[in-house]
């Protein structure tokens, strides 16, 4: 389906044409630290009753010379857009583009503005940290606008500083800013030993914050249950005094050496085996 106003060469493939006014655009990536982005998007899509309405053709943005196989199953890059009329939101759930990021992100923003009449862009990502799973997850905010910065600081720590290559979420935010479309990157801390697993506690922290920012009233009970289940499995691992000492060290804000970190990651891997 080629909606009115869309170029036939556009990589967007619509299955329906929702029309929203003043929507929120939420971008999430399928592979990130602690699976925070993917799980948060899954939850937001389900909780807001969003339905898929468009896909982005992978050619030009991902290597499509074949498929990768993970856990015996062939994978292929996917970029899907979901729309919630009731919550006036468009959610992108995508693999991070591997090339032509400028074109990819502008296509995404075109859709957000043209069909969603987006007034704000939000991204969700996990970031590995030397913290313990027993401590509350901190969420950092990054924005491209001074006015939003002031509001953001009322909700999240104000000391997000970074210099280096930009993450795709930051690039999206910057491009949105060039269009005078305000937005926020939300980065939630994930204990480093949970980076390769699903960290439901971090998912809950960032979903709770985002829903508050958007004025959504969501039942977070399911996320609470998943987080409690995860914490239960991790608590069992503290029967080992060496592991307990390492976690206590992290709780005290102390660092661990490389070997200690590796041991902790291995212990967590065993504790969570089969749960991710």
């Amino acid at each position, binding site marked *: 389906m080629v909606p009115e106003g869309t170029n036939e060469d556009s990589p967007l493939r619509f299955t329906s044409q929702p029309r929203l006014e003043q929507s929120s655009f939420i971008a999430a990536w399928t592979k990130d630290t602690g699976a925070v982005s993917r799980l948060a998007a899954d939850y937001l899509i389900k909780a807001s009753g969003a339905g898929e309405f468009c896909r982005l053709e992978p050619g030009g943005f991902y290597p499509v010379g074949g498929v990768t196989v993970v856990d015996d199953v062939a994978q292929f890059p996917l970029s899907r857009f979901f729309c919630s009329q009731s919550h006036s939101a468009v959610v992108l759930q995508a693999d991070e583009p591997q090339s032509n990021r400028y074109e990819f992100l502008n296509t995404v923003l075109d859709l957000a503005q043209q069909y969603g009449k987006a007034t704000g862009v939000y991204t969700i990502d996990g970031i590995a940290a030397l913290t313990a799973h027993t401590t509350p997850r901190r969420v*950092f905010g990054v*924005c491209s606008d001074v006015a939003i910065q002031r509001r*953001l600081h009322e909700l999240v720590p104000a*000391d997000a500083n*970074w210099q280096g*290559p930009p993450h795709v979420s930051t690039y999206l935010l910057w491009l949105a800013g060039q269009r005078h479309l305000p937005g926020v990157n939300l980065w939630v801390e994930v204990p480093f030993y949970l980076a390769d697993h699903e960290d439901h506690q971090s998912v809950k922290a960032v979903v709770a914050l985002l829903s508050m920012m958007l004025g959504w009233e969501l039942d977070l009970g399911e996320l609470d249950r998943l987080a409690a289940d995860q914490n239960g499995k991790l608590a069992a691992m503290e029967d080992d005094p060496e592991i307990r000492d390492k976690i206590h060290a992290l709780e005290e804000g102390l660092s661990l050496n490389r070997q200690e970190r590796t041991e902790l990651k291995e212990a967590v891997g065993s504790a969570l085996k089969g749960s991710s």
Partner: protein
Amino acid sequence: MLCGWAGIGSVGLAAIGTLRRLVRASEFGRIEPYEYFEPSRVVIRNGLISRMWFPNTTFYSHSLPDRDLLLLVGEQQPTDDRKAYKMANEVLDVAQRVGCRRIYTSAASVTTIHHRVKPRVWAVPNSPDLLAEVRRYGNTILMSEAENAAETRGTTDESDEDTRSFISAGSGGGSISGLNGILLGAAKNRGIEAICLMGEVPYYLQAAPWPYPKASISVLEVLSRLLRMPLDLCELHEMAEKVDRNIEQVLEALANTEELPEQVRTEMERLKQGRRPDLGPITDGEKHEIMEHIDELFRDEAENGS
């Protein structure tokens, strides 16, 4: 128009960048980077994106008594062929708009030259009518004039092994990869004269994290002669001396590497002694091994911040 892009040894970039500073050329335009390059760096302060950096591709102009110069300094080359071709045409659009009649690109040519030897400049014009002129430049060499069965490469993207275009010198044939080559071809299609000047870089330094100013000096000396424009290159000479000292240190460290195969060790000893390497008995595998050892040392140097 004189073009210099980032590439092996930063030869082209350093040559044209130095020329720009020496003549105090004025900036008059830039190519928008967004379609060509990824952002190289973001600065976030207190949760606010304060700046996003992209590689610059900047045009400068300068007037000489008998001609106007257009300089192009590119901090990076597009890695995608389609984008490189588009950029080359964008550059040519500007060149034609301002009435440019001749284009020179500058780059590196990776050869078996020794680092204590003055680099020659490999010259490749895009028209046979220019061959006689190129021969008169001095310290230049045409592909057909190569002395040995050396391998050379018209440079650009050191990160992509597949894009390397080695040629068998002596046949007068080969290829020049990256924007330096594409620009030559695209200019030819438009009937614009263009010449690529490639300063020699020793093969064992092609992955070095430092510039190779000696090659830039050779390129600038050619440009100085053909433009009848004296240039004070003392800044580049000083840098070349520093780089030479670094090279000697790396070779010394390499010679002390315990697990180095005997034949490679002999080759490195020859380099240390300043003798032109004889590639005959060295196999491709051994050459690869030399490069790997040198790469490792360069990486260590870079990581140690020295």
